[in-house]
């Protein structure tokens, strides 16, 4: 009896001691932070787009270093996992499967080639993995989990029309010819919405010509464009594309200004000469490498030099890659703050992407997404002057030229 009383006393003391502890534990469960946050990237380190997409590898690795040097996301370091699609959708699909089945699974994905983004659009939606992608409309729309990392190609063309009408000094309406790549990317500007917008702005779209990515001569197309009396040529092509057009213009002695968006950049100068691109116009949604007083450019340059990157990797996709990592950091961080690490999901990150308004990625670019528009809308016009790309306009809001079927 005496033993039983002693045992009961111990039991009561234990209960009285442990119960509040257990209650405390229930009230504030400790959530383990992950050891790393992964961001998956599928780009073209090899294949036809490698000349321009190659430096994304450098940008993502340098931006990863920058984010981790500045405390990661809520103290958790990020890890960028880069995979090469080599210009083949089947390989990109294989890489995607690997990424989404990785442990820990990347919480966001970046796709640098339109064809991959198009091919993976539905799988991304099913897997609920928020993705930043290059911007062929069919890569982003119908709206799901894919967001544009810059303006859609149609919106870039619309912004070009706006800028042209602002600066046009001729008495007759300007005549513009499209000479673009015969690919999903190139043909993204050949939509009825773009044609209608040009017409509404008073720009006379006189020709729509295409050429293959492998073509080294576009004389035939240029002769047809010359016959139509074009005042400007606008192209949606990258790396060798603009160079082929500019060489053709030089060979023909056809003195007409040339413009391009996003893909027409420093890389074109590296593979030709600065004289060839002099005076041409390019449109980006971020600041130029040559704006050395920009804090974002200074930071990028610091990491670029620290990693001893080759000078020719200073192309358009480097700031873009850097910007993308900063967007990922921002939205993942916001999602963690709102729902916590334990409830971090694709849906929570997507919700934060949709709340992103005028987000300044280190001053490199300004990003806004809305429920209607899954791509940014601010961009600026630059011009090649003595081997540098310098702004010739303020930041401009591009028109929304989304195809009717996606509205």
């Amino acid at each position, binding site marked *: 009896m005496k033993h039983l009383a002693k045992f009961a006393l111990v039991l009561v003391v234990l209960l009285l001691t442990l119960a509040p502890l257990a209650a405390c534990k229930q009230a504030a469960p400790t959530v383990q932070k992950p050891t790393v946050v992964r961001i998956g990237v599928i780009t073209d*380190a*090899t294949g036809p787009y*490698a*000349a321009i997409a*190659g*430096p*994304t*590898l*450098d940008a993502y*690795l340098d931006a990863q270093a920058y984010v981790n040097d500045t405390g990661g996301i809520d103290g958790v370091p990020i890890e960028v996992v*880069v*995979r*090469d*699609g*080599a210009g*083949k*959708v*089947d*390989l990109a*699909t*294989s*890489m995607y*499967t*690997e990424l*989404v*089945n990785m442990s820990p699974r990347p919480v966001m994905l970046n796709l640098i080639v339109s*064809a991959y983004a*198009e*091919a*993976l*659009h*539905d*799988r991304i939606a*099913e897997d609920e993995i928020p993705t930043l992608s290059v911007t*062929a409309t*069919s890569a982003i729309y119908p709206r799901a989990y894919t967001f544009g990392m810059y303006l859609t190609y149609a919106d870039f063309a619309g912004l070009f029309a706006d800028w042209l009408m602002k600066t046009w000094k001729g008495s007759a309406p300007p005549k513009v010819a499209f000479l673009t790549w*015969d*690919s*999903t990317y190139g*043909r993204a500007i050949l939509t009825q919405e773009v044609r209608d917008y040009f017409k509404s702005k008073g720009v006379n779209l006189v020709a729509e010509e295409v050429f293959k990515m492998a073509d080294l001569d576009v004389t035939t197309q240029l002769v047809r464009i010359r016959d139509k009396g074009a005042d400007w040529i606008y192209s949606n092509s990258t790396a060798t594309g603009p160079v082929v057009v500019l060489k053709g213009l030089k060979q023909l002695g056809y003195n007409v200004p040339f413009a391009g968006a996003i893909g027409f950049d420093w890389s074109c100068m590296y593979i030709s000469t600065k004289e060839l691109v002099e005076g041409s116009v390019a449109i980006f949604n971020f600041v130029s490498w040559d704006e050395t007083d920009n804090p974002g450019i200074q930071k990028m340059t610091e990491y670029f030099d620290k*990693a*001893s*990157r*080759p000078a*020719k*990797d200073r192309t358009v996709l480097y700031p873009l890659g850097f910007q993308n990592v900063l967007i990922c950091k921002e939205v993942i961080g916001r999602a963690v703050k709102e729902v916590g690490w334990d409830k971090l999901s694709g849906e929570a990150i997507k919700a934060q992407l949709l709340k992103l308004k005028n987000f300044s990625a280190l001053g490199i670019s300004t990003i806004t997404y809305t429920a209607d528009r899954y791509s940014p809308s601010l961009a600026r016009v630059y011009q090649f002057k003595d081997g540098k790309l310098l702004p010739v306009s303020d930041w401009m809001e591009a028109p929304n030229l989304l195809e009717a079927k996606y509205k």
Partner: protein
Amino acid sequence: MSLPCGTFNETYAQDMAIVRTRTQWIILVGGLVLLFALPTFAGPRVITLGNLIGISVISVLGLNILTGYCGQISLGQAAFMAVGAYTQAMLTVHLKWPFWAALPVSGVVAAIVGLVFGTPSLRVKGFYLAMATLAAQFVVPWMIVNVKPDITGGIHSFRVPAPALGGGLVLNTQTEMFYVIIPIAVIMTFFAKNIVRTRVGRAFVAIRDNDLAAEVMGVNVFRYKLLAFAICSFYAGIAGALWAHWMRNIAPTHFHLVDSIWYLGMLIVGGIGSTTGAVFGAVFIRTLDLSVSLLSPWVSSTFPAIGGQASAALSPLLFGLAILLFILFEPRGLYHRWEIFKAAYRLHPYSH
């Protein structure tokens, strides 16, 4: 077929059998069991690669019938795959046909298109025939992009749903697609293996070896050449249809001339004129392709000073080097190596 030492064919049935000995049966059944059990122990990347290999095997088997057995070269295999893929997509998306009903029709439509592009084979051969089939690689994508782009999607991608097998069963994942693609690949391998043993197959081989002699013997050369084109394109059509559902998305850029050349490359590397070689070639090239593409991101992150573009060059360099060395040291393909291995195994421990 060479038989193991001490094994003799005593009946016609034995002479006709593809699988002749108990060991061969054990290897076949064991191999199939292992193949179909692959998703239980292999990771998703391997399964995805397995699906791609399965599709490639079907396409290369078709090319082997045309080029390996009948001796007619074709550079349009990817274009015929495009015909199958777009037919399958249009039937299942626009006309709401079930997957299984649309699949053979896609093969047949591709076969008809193959017949059209095979017609020049009566008058030309060798490089000239290659040029004629090359036309398919330009005409077919052009038609997809420019003729009725509202139906085909034009230059943009055409979204294809995951195949539904009825009863609400939708094959969404790579593993589920594995159990569609691989059985079809196995069945089509069986048919390909058998074709060469038939009257038709023997006519193909006769044409390949000497078309004049074949004609003198009474083989209708034009008919059999066209038949080879039709069978080859049928295989390509089925491969294309499976590709459409596997990718869940098709675009003209998925069926490039480079792909046609690589299907031919797979055949050469594997061993032209052999069903086993076609399988070996597809497995080897696809695996090599995936392996080298993993190299450049690794090099770039390990040696940052090299830079993304320079390190990227390593992958195609290594890929090209592997193919070059292969052709240099084993021009008869992997199949020949396999035959040497089998002979050595049968004769062990005696070398002669």
